[in-house]
């Protein structure tokens, strides 16, 4: 495997292999010196055309813990502001000698184009509403550490329409045998769900007491160009994981959120910080998953072939 663009690049075996490898890196991250020389001399560039806190820091931390050198590209301080095209920017960075580029871009498919332009490995850190494979990997890793995934009932709740996290998670969870229900108002679902291995509900109260996991999505106000729901308050009343609604969860149900959270909108602060929440664990696991991805892509020998 040379690139990771989508969960579609993985089958059950390679997905499970990445999760197993992530466990090894979780152990490395527990050590006094959470760093190994595995990818010494490799150069990883992070190229983020959209704002990010956790994904970017997580990838950069992962690369550093593998002893990679990290080149950080910040769009705001770059020649992109002078009108440089994505292709020129990427080829310029590649010409400096890099082994991998971690890219986030508002246009779906941008990472796929980059693959054609440069020799380095390309890792998709989120492209438009299309895919965010490492988020899905860290989510299934987090769940796998608590539950058997086969037969697990997972509700993905919220702004599915604009969510690359939802798209990637549906695929990863399905590969591992979990049963996914999307819960959202019709306006926040994609126009077509044909081929999605999911059930759909428009009523969170109907499913809340039956699922093992509630995965909340961030309301992506920045991608919404029209009024898709009447008011934020009404959205929260019907689809938010409020404290009252959380009381109807199964006693051992788990709550996840990819961050950043709109506290009080899709999830109540007390629930996000409560005992059922895996939110901080998701962040910690994200570093290990990204170490596993970098190690698999840059350490497999595929890049020298």
């Amino acid at each position, binding site marked *: 495997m040379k690139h990771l663009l989508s969960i579609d690049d993985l089958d059950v075996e390679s997905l499970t292999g990445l999760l197993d490898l992530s466990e*090894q890196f979780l*152990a490395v991250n527990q050590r006094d010196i959470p760093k190994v*020389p595995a*990818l010494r001399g490799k150069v990883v560039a992070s190229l983020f055309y959209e704002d990010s806190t956790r994904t970017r820091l997580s990838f950069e931390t992962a690369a550093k813990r593998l002893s990679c050198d990290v080149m950080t590209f910040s769009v705001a301080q770059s020649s992109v502001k002078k009108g440089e095209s994505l292709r020129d920017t990427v080829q310029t960075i590649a010409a400096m000698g890099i082994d991998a580029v971690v890219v986030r871009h508002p246009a779906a498919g941008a990472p796929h184009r980059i693959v054609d332009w440069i020799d380095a490995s390309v890792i998709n850190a989120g492209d438009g509403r299309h895919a965010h494979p490492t988020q899905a990997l860290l989510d299934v890793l987090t769940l796998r550490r608590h539950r058997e995934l086969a037969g697990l009932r997972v509700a993905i709740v919220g702004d599915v329409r604009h969510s690359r996290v939802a798209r990637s998670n549906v695929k990863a969870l399905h590969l591992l045998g979990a049963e996914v229900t999307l819960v959202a108002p019709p306006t926040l679902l994609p126009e077509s769900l044909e081929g999605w291995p999911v059930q759909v509900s428009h009523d969170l109260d109907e499913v809340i007491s039956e699922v093992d996991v509630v995965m909340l999505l961030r309301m992506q106000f920045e991608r919404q160009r029209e009024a898709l729901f009447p008011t934020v308050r009404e959205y929260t009343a019907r689809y938010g994981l409020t404290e009252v609604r959380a009381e109807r969860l199964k006693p051992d149900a788990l709550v996840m959120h990819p961050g950043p959270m709109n506290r009080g909108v899709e999830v109540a602060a007390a629930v996000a910080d409560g005992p059922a929440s895996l939110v901080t664990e998701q962040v910690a696991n994200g570093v290990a998953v990204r170490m596993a991805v970098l*190690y698999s892509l*840059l350490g497999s020998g595929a890049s*020298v072939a």
Partner: protein
Amino acid sequence: MREFRASVFDAGDLRRAHTRIAHEIVERNHGADDLVLVGLYTRGPAIARRLAAAIEGFEGREVPVGALDVAFYRDDIGLRTVTPVGPTEVPVDISGRVVVLVDDVLFTGRTVRAALDALTELGRPRAVQLAVLIDRGHRELPIRPDYVGKNLPTGRTEDVRVRLAEVDGGDDGIELWDVHDEGVGEGIG
């Protein structure tokens, strides 16, 4: 081509080699104080546990046993797929102690080189020694074992197969095979 050449050790030979190496470790270190046995995956941890059990048998002293995965410290990452085998677990602080690295077969020495790097991140041992069941030659680095079950001259197209009941199932044994066309993992041991 894959051809059986010879049996090197049967279960009895292996047991006697363990017992002798255990005695040599204790003799060389004037007792079992401050010792830590650290096995290298895949079979090293099992061998280390056997050595520790033997030492406890005649010295009456429990010796801590650890396991080390050297995958992330290897120098051939990127040349082939290097996959970690198990968790690194060393139950005591190795600083100031004598660490005996334990492996089944010593070949190029590159695994041991990686293990020395991995150890430095766990602490600063007073000394590091090396125990192996088989030294098959073909060293590519200036590394030599302190304790050897058997020196076994081999060809590069030969493979030394170690079988330990608790790792591989079946009876203990070590065999020499010719694997001419399959290629031995060159530079791995």
